[in-house]
């Protein structure tokens, strides 16, 4: 028997547990009792995090497509084909004809290395990862208003606050150990406002449940801010000393009377007034949000409004307050921190800045680095369909299920000159690849993950990877070497982290010998720094907090006669994203074995639909069949569908309408019609 302390591979909460192994096989999980976030508990996915690791469908050997069929190959053959294939595309079409998709499931070290491979070895800034699909609006919106696109506070602040506003986050299902902390706070007297038109578990405990129309967050938040200003509830000292551009904000919300906001959101004016009074009346109030805010064609505007509400009420820079975007994947914070983004190096250092570029070029031993920002992932599909992108290297992502408008995604992926996928299972995307590289999963490698509260934690190897599968970092370094680059030879991920620390001020004091047992929170600029639980204490990262007023815009696609329902998408408690791990975990898959769609009983009755009926759901982009779940979780006129399932894929329906600034797709609103399958 052996116990290995590591980080849960699922959400961004960053719970730590011990993997229990016996004879080289995982046989269970035990929570870490002392961990500051999980505190001896886990959610159902955490308790089952060992269950997929030895699944017989794990990839064990490289695969190369020959005569149209993926066939086993040696590592030498597969990696040489990767390198020559990428180089051939670049010779023919230019450096920016290749793109690298990194992974929020990979470690910090691996994200850093893939970013380095793209930039230093293949000379392109075309590197991005799935943060584009979840919190790119946060990175843009909070960087502009606060100077830092991450949770301002720590999870423990939930214990210290008086009022919590949860907007667009189904926290008990998507960040269960954070959600449970909210439930405990409410039991102890904390006021809870839930703004989400699904009747999520938290709503059952809320003092106010605001079921506003999908996509009307700017109207709701502007309405709340209007009331706060009109009723003299502004924290004037904070606004005067810590912020700028307040006059513009006040002017922008002046027209958003409760009545006008009510008309736009579908709420009662009184609900908006009550929310404003409850939030602004609290000594300490904190905002938690997630995809319900970010995944809109106006996601950055939503984030701007959230930031403004916190500044208006002086709820930044103190315990029990703050703007707290809950990051989805276990390392989506780290993926962003490491610069797996088209415009940023690690630590949010801009590629457009010649001084920064020069520093990285010297450290990496290359004459120059590309200056123009690369492609965001969500624009890659269009670039490929226009011929500007010819090769895609995907590490640990499954865009066939996770990208909007699946039909388009499939066409584009099939049309590429070269598609390389590095993953642990033959995902729907890997099945289309020319070359498949088998990777080690989280339990089979060393590295670090950064959780939603900026806590950098050690992940450890508990068992060997199956067959000849290798850790992502080893594969990336091998590719670099075969491409003729000698600056990526490391004994272990520890050495990679040392390099990261040397180039990344936010991580300057992060080193493996400092991370036991439960990590450090960035910014951590030097080896003596204790880490930073709270951001923006005396001043904002950018100096003064910047009010950045937002104009209300409707979602890109609204219901009409042909497509009369709003479809909103998301995750369920029991599955993770495209299901490659959880659908191979027996108990988790048993809980949610198939695709479903939530429909309100009134709509169901009108359409003659009963619980469990097969339904045909169609949008302008595609159609799928799924199973009806008749429930008051949703309001009439709105349908909810999870995106985990290849059969009945929600993203066959969704709209690739992008926020103009963050390029995030509008997963939360599109128009569909639905009918019972005869």
């Amino acid at each position, binding site marked *: 028997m052996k116990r290995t302390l590591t980080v849960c591979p699922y959400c961004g909460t960053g719970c730590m547990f011990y993997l229990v192994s016996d004879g080289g096989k995982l*046989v269970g999980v035990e*929570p870490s*009792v002392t961990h500051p976030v999980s505190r*001896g508990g886990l959610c159902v996915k955490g308790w089952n995090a060992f269950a997929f690791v030895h699944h017989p469908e794990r990839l064990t050997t490289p695969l190369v497509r020959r005569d149209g069929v993926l066939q086993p190959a040696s590592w030498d053959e597969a990696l040489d084909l990767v390198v020559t294939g990428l180089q051939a595309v670049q010779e023919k079409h230019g450096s920016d004809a290749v793109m690298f998709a990194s992974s929020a499931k990979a470690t910090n070290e691996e994200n850093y290395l893939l970013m380095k491979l793209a930039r230093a070895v293949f000379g392109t800034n075309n590197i991005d990862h799935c943060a584009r699909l979840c919190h790119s609006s946060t990175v843009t919106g909070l960087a502009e208003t606060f100077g830092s696109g991450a949770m301002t506070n720590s999870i423990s602040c939930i214990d210290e606050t008086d009022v919590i506003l949860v907007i667009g986050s189904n926290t008990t299902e998507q960040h269960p150990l954070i959600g449970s902390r909210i439930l405990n706070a409410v*039991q102890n007297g904390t006021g809870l406002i839930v703004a989400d038109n699904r009747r999520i578990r938290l709503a059952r405990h809320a003092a106010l449940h605001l079921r506003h129309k999908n996509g009307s967050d700017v109207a709701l938040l502007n309405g709340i801010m209007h009331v706060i200003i009109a009723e003299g509830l502004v924290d004037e000292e904070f606004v005067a000393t810590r912020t700028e551009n307040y006059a513009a904000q006040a002017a922008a919300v002046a027209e958003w009377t409760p009545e006008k906001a009510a008309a736009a959101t579908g709420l009662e004016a009184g609900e908006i007034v009550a929310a404003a009074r409850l939030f602004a009346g609290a000594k300490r109030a904190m905002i938690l949000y997630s995809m319900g805010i970010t995944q809109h064609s106006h996601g950055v505007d939503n984030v701007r409004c959230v930031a403004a509400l916190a500044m208006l009420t002086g709820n930044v820079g103190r315990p029990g307050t703050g703007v707290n975007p809950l990051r989805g994947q276990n390392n989506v914070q780290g993926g962003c921190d490491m610069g797996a983004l088209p415009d940023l190096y690690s630590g949010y250092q801009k590629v457009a800045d010649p001084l920064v570029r020069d520093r990285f070029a010297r450290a990496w031993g290359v004459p120059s680095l590309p200056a123009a920002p690369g492609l965001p992932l969500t624009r890659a599909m269009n670039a490929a369909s226009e011929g500007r992108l010819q090769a895609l290297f995907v590490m640990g992502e499954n865009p066939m299920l996770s990208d909007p408008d699946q039909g388009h995604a499939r066409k584009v992926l099939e049309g590429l000159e070269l598609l390389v996928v590095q993953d642990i299972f033959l995902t729907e995307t890997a099945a289309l690849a020319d070359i498949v590289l088998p990777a080690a999963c989280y339990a089979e490698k060393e590295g670090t993950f950064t959780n939603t509260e900026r806590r950098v934690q050690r992940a450890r190897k508990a068992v060997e990877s199956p067959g000849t599968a290798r850790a992502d970092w080893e594969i990336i370094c091998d590719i670099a070497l075969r491409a003729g680059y000698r600056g990526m030879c490391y004994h272990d991920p520890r050495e990679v982290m040392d390099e990261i620390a040397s180039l990344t001020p936010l991580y300057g004091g992060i080193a493996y010998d400092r991370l036991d*047992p439960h990590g450090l929170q960035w910014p951590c600029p030097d080896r003596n720094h204790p880490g930073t639980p709270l951001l923006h204490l005396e001043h904002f990262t950018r100096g003064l907090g910047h009010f950045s007023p937002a104009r209300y815009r409707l979602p890109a696609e609204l219901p009409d006669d042909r497509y009369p329902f709003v479809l909103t998408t998301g995750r369920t408690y029991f599955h993770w994203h495209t299901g490659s791990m959880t659908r191979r975990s027996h*108990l988790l898959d048993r809980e949610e074995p198939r695709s479903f769609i939530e429909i309100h009983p009134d709509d169901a009755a009108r359409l003659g639909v009963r619980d469990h009926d097969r339904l045909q759901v169609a949008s302008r982009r595609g159609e799928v069949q799924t199973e009806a779940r008749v429930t008051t979780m949703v309001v009439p006129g709105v349908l909810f569908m999870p995106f985990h399932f290849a059969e009945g894929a929600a993203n066959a329906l969704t709209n690739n309408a992008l926020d103009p600034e963050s390029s995030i797709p509008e997963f939360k609103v599109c128009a569909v019609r639905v009918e019972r399958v005869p």
Partner: protein
Amino acid sequence: MKILHPAQLNNFIERLAKAWEVRLPVLLPDGTRVIGSPGDGPPALHGGAVMGKPTSAFFPHHGTLFTSDGGKLEGPQNPDLPLFVLGFTPRDLACLRFIDRFFADGLCDDVYFRRRNNALVAGLSGLCGPGGIMIPPAGGGCDLEFFCDGSCWLVIPYSDGGREVSAGLSDPALPTSVELFRQAALSQPDEQEELLRRASELLRADRVPDHFWAEIGDRCIACTGCNLACPTCTCFGVQDWRSAQKTERSRMWDSCQLDGFMREASGHNPLGSEALRSRRRIHHKLAADPEKWGEISCFLCGRCDAVCPTGIGMVAVAREMVARFG
């Protein structure tokens, strides 16, 4: 009775490990205490009941039931060495006794008894509870018991196996008995046992209304930790993994807090809400098991209350139930 000085503990464990697969409370790198292998960390006998099911040595979180290779069935391998498991508090021993009865009932669970038979179980009591408080001795129900007298471990064998493994230890300087401690504890009313008894009566008299369970259910995030930490929860799920070479059937701890646990093939679920499932969890231990087994099957080990992220473990729920309806 024998005596073991703390300084002798490591040698004692090393000697045992030659003939036994030893499990004992150890301290893991982040301060978590579990019943683990000696190599997992330094022995940590003080601190009371450990995290995790102490019974997992015999009924692991995940384990193979059999493999089928070309039609040939093979059961799981027997352990190379019999198990020696130290770390059961008296309450844990009650849990073990209960699941021994469960797994032996009817069709005896061969996979469980492959590990349980021939195993030696060692209890832990005395001044080794949380903060050094007294855990009254079990006085039996195990092969031997380690009783902390404040400076040494008194090792009390109750079976031939217990006598055999403790034979090499010294005798105490003076004749000693821990029976007085046990009697003293028995003479004291146990507030939590009384609480459970009253909660059990309320349930059996059907005096707990549905809305109470709806409130408890609303606070359940279905993490399943209560079941997965409980030493008397024995439910398991079964999966088959097929590869080109073989099929492997294994079982893993399951939870009655999951919808799929009772869902029928039609999709209908007689326990289709968190309220019903929460009621079932408590009702099973406090009302159904007394009917079937003649005793409440919660022995107040405290693990579900410790592991539950939202504070609805057994004692918390019983306390609320009795306060409101008792």
